[in-house]
């Protein structure tokens, strides 16, 4: 039975590359047994290690790449039965392909999104123009619609490509690494824009990304591809709590800290320290201590203890080492002092 909220659903989908001559003598499977579905109004993040097949999956779902086996349904219809024009009215994409052209205004580029609807010559009618204007307004790119696309920053270009996908007026937008090459404010801006669009327009949004932190915070659900080509889906929090998330990204000297929802960069090599005190101060002090190689814990019973105390000017750090007590007034001081105590 077809669920009207489901835009894309797959059944036992296998993706990869068919055999091709001497260069690829046998079929290469990237991922198999994929059963996923993408719903209206939801933001889904597709995560996986490098080379796990995120792009291949997105391109296969978008109808740009043929599946090896299995079925893809687009709004209840088998995708193979739809014409490329029909697909283009249901799915729009933002790909990693670089734009290499200039001499094209932002408006003209966004207007290309209307190609699935225009006649043989591609002229825009009133409705097309309204859709383009709406796409431009929704993505907040009005201030530079007349600029040449060659002179856009990476963040601006990504917004313009999203506006083009919006103008295409589809039920789902598939984005391949839309936040790559962007700085943090731009990454956040793009994710917020996508969340707002999914919520306001009831579009389904699927994006692949390397930003695990951002994905955990922004996604309504996650699709994880592991190294063995399995795809696991679920709410981010469920996948973290049941250990799936950790398992997918597990690698030597790289582990996920469930308590903080982030990755540990540093392997502890020095003795345990008990850290407590003001929350904000503890958060940042913990980072500095971990960077220096200490194992930080909240429980008592360690030889070394640090207490972070708020003061009028900021914070103060009280160290107690067995019977001795010291006070430091900056994190740098604290690290230096601990270093001396150790030797």
């Amino acid at each position, binding site marked *: 039975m077809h669920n009207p909220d489901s835009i894309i659903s797959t059944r036992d989908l296998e993706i990869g590359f068919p055999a091709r001559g001497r260069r690829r003598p046998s079929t290469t499977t990237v991922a198999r047994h994929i059963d996923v579905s993408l719903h209206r109004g939801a933001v889904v993040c597709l995560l996986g290690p490098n080379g796990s097949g995120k792009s291949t999956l997105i*391109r296969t779902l*978008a*109808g*740009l790449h043929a599946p090896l086996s299995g079925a893809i349904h687009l709004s209840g219809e088998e995708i193979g039965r739809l*014409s*490329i*024009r*029909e*697909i*283009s*009215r249901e*799915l*729009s*994409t933002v*790909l990693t*392909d670089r*734009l*290499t*052209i*200039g*001499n*094209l*205004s932002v*408006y*003209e*580029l966004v207007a*290309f*999104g209307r*190609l*699935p609807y*225009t006649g*043989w*010559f*591609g*002229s825009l009618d009133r409705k097309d*123009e*309204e*859709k*383009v*204007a*709406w796409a*431009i*307004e*929704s993505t907040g790119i009005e201030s530079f*619609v*007349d600029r*040449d696309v*060659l002179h856009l920053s990476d963040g601006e270009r990504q917004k313009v490509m999203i506006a083009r996908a919006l103008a*295409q007026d589809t039920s789902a937008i598939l984005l391949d690494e839309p936040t790559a090459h962007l700085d943090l404010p731009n990454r956040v801006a793009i994710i917020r824009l996508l969340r707002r669009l999914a919520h*306001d*327009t009831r579009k389904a949004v699927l994006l692949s990304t390397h930003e695990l932190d951002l994905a955990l915070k922004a996604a309504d659900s996650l699709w994880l591809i592991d190294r063995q080509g399995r795809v696991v889906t679920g709410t981010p929090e469920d996948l973290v709590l049941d250990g799936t998330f950790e398992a997918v990204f597990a690698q030597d000297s790289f582990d996920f800290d469930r308590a903080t929802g982030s990755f540990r960069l540093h392997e502890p090599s020095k003795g345990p320290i008990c850290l407590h005190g003001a929350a904000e101060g503890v958060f940042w002090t913990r980072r500095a201590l971990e960077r220096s190689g200490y194992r930080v814990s909240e429980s008592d019973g360690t030889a070394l203890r640090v207490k972070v105390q708020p003061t009028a000017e900021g914070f103060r750090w009280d160290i107690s080492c067995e019977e001795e007590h010291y006070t430091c007034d900056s994190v740098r001081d604290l690290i230096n002092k601990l270093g001396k105590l150790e030797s």
Partner: protein
Amino acid sequence: MTDQPKDHNRSYRTGIRPLYFLLLGAGVAGLFLLNLALGSVDIPLPDILRILWGGEVQEPAWQKILINIRLPRAVTAILAGSALSVAGLLMQTLFRNPLAGPSVLGITAGASLGVAVVMLAGGTITTIFAIRELTALGSWLIILAASIGSAAVLLLILLISVRVRDNVTLLIIGLMVGNMTIALVSIWQYFSRPEQIQDYLIWTFGSLGGVPLGQLWMLGAITLAGGGMAMILSKSLNGLLLGENYARSMGLSVSRARLWIIVSTSLLAGGITAFCGPIGFVGIAVPHLTRSLLGTNEHRVLVPGTLLMGAMLLLGCDVIAQMPGSTATLPISAVTSMVGSPVVIWVIIQRKNLQASF
């Protein structure tokens, strides 16, 4: 915010720049008249206009010179300039490469091979003059040979392009295929008789004066068909600007668009090369000049702009080729390269790089 647009009144449309089209049209008309006025015999402008209007002038010889010699030459310049330029535009968009063009990718070389096959393969009777005597049929034979030759090279390059995704690699392959084609022709020349080679050599210099009045309509038909196809292809060309994946995701059939682009390019480049010989540079330079002038890559504007700009440029080059004040005439392909290359260099330096002018 809802699904409906809020602000209906604001329009961001960039427009089709009517002023530039007016200027281009005026440029074509002005150079057309200048072309008609130039030559060893001085015909006053009012008389030229009167003859064109079908009126009588006191010198009947003027009428003959104008209608039989100068008019076909000027019309050929317009048609050849438009056709080659649009062929270049189609290539640049298809390969998404600013250096693409009929001559660079060996398409003109392919046409030359086709012509060489017709001219050199037969016995003594199949010289170009013998073919000319066959009038329409013979011309079609050369056009067919040239078009098949250019289409063969283009198809070969396209087959390779399926495997080679990188545009620069593809361009180099195109250059090599062109070289091989030229080598084939020169081997053929080596084993041919001098009088056959002479005809072929004269053909390779390029000439706008070789199309008799009676066969102009063929040139017109080819340009119209190819140019018309390019106009119809505008929408697909726009889609291809963003790359094949985006084009397909916007519902365009890339393979069909590719096929029609190849058909119209070979018709345009092959047909013109058959009639006028290989005229270099126009195909690669005019699209860049037009983009710089109009400031757009939107093909619904760019295709007609390129048609006009190409006509204007080749008319201008022909004025120089006729060397006003002397009786000699330079080979047209030499003039197009001599005049055009500095223009392109200037445009590229102005816009900092070729990519920016693409």
